[in-house]
């Protein structure tokens, strides 16, 4: 059940990305193109997800512990630092350039578009570079 729930979570996530259109970089870039071929669909993806998670998270956290773990691993920081802002800004530039963020890029990998097969390894390298720079401050419980 423990492993199965994780598998189902991954499958639900990937299916949601495909159904919603987020696995299509053209759709993502059109959402970001307010002054061109604007497609507002992506706002509905975020809206749909938050409408489900907001009450869902609230209910889940009424439990003392998760089903298969001793504690909830939730981020506790509330401060702002340069790393958060610079990191998010950098991420946004890459997201705009390629139309891919990590979930959709990985979900798209089996579809084997040549662009995806270039993007994904580059993304993994980018993550490893950031980890090797930020390891001392990177906590495993962060998002």
């Amino acid at each position: 059940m423990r492993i199965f729930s994780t598998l189902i979570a991954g499958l639900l996530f990937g299916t949601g990305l495909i159904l919603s259109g987020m696995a299509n970089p053209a759709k993502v870039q059109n959402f970001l193109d307010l002054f061109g071929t604007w497609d507002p669909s992506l706002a509905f993806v975020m809206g749909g997800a938050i409408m489900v998670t907001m009450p869902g998270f609230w209910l889940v956290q009424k439990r003392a512990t998760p089903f298969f773990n001793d504690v909830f691993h939730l981020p506790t920081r509330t401060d702002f630092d340069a790393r958060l802002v610079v990191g998010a800004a950098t991420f946004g530039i890459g997201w705009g350039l390629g139309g891919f963020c990590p979930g959709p890029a990985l979900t798209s990998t089996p579809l084997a578009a040549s662009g995806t097969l270039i993007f994904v390894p580059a993304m993994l390298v980018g993550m490893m570079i950031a980890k090797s720079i930020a390891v001392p401050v990177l906590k495993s419980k962060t998002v």
Partner: protein
Amino acid sequence: METDFTPIASLLGGGLIGLSAIVLLAAHGRIAGISGIVSRILSPNVDKAGLPQGIVFLIGLLLAAPLWILVTGATPAQVVSSNGPLLVIAGILVGFGSVMGNGCTSGHGVCGISRGSTRSIAATMTFMATAFVTVFVLRHVVGG
């Protein structure tokens, strides 16, 4: 290239993403942040305790497209740029930025906002802003 406005499919797809986040939190007490899940199982400093769960989640994610094709008989519609150098830069920025900023669209944009995290709200506003500007420059300044 224009894409169709798909409010219903996008809302339902978003709902599935939300459901996945609830399953992860309820079962394992974990946030469904893809950049976090992936980066934790990458070197350096691999999270050995979380390795099996991380890999299984990724297997689920990777199975979604093949299963989609099997069930619907259709390949998910997708237009990916074939500009290699651009995608290398985009990939590095996405990977680097999401780890530095402790999250991406899922961890900050969905889970963080749902928890009312001010860090996540700030991060989401920041990456949305730079993404809008990037696409504007890409399509209307340099792209023409």
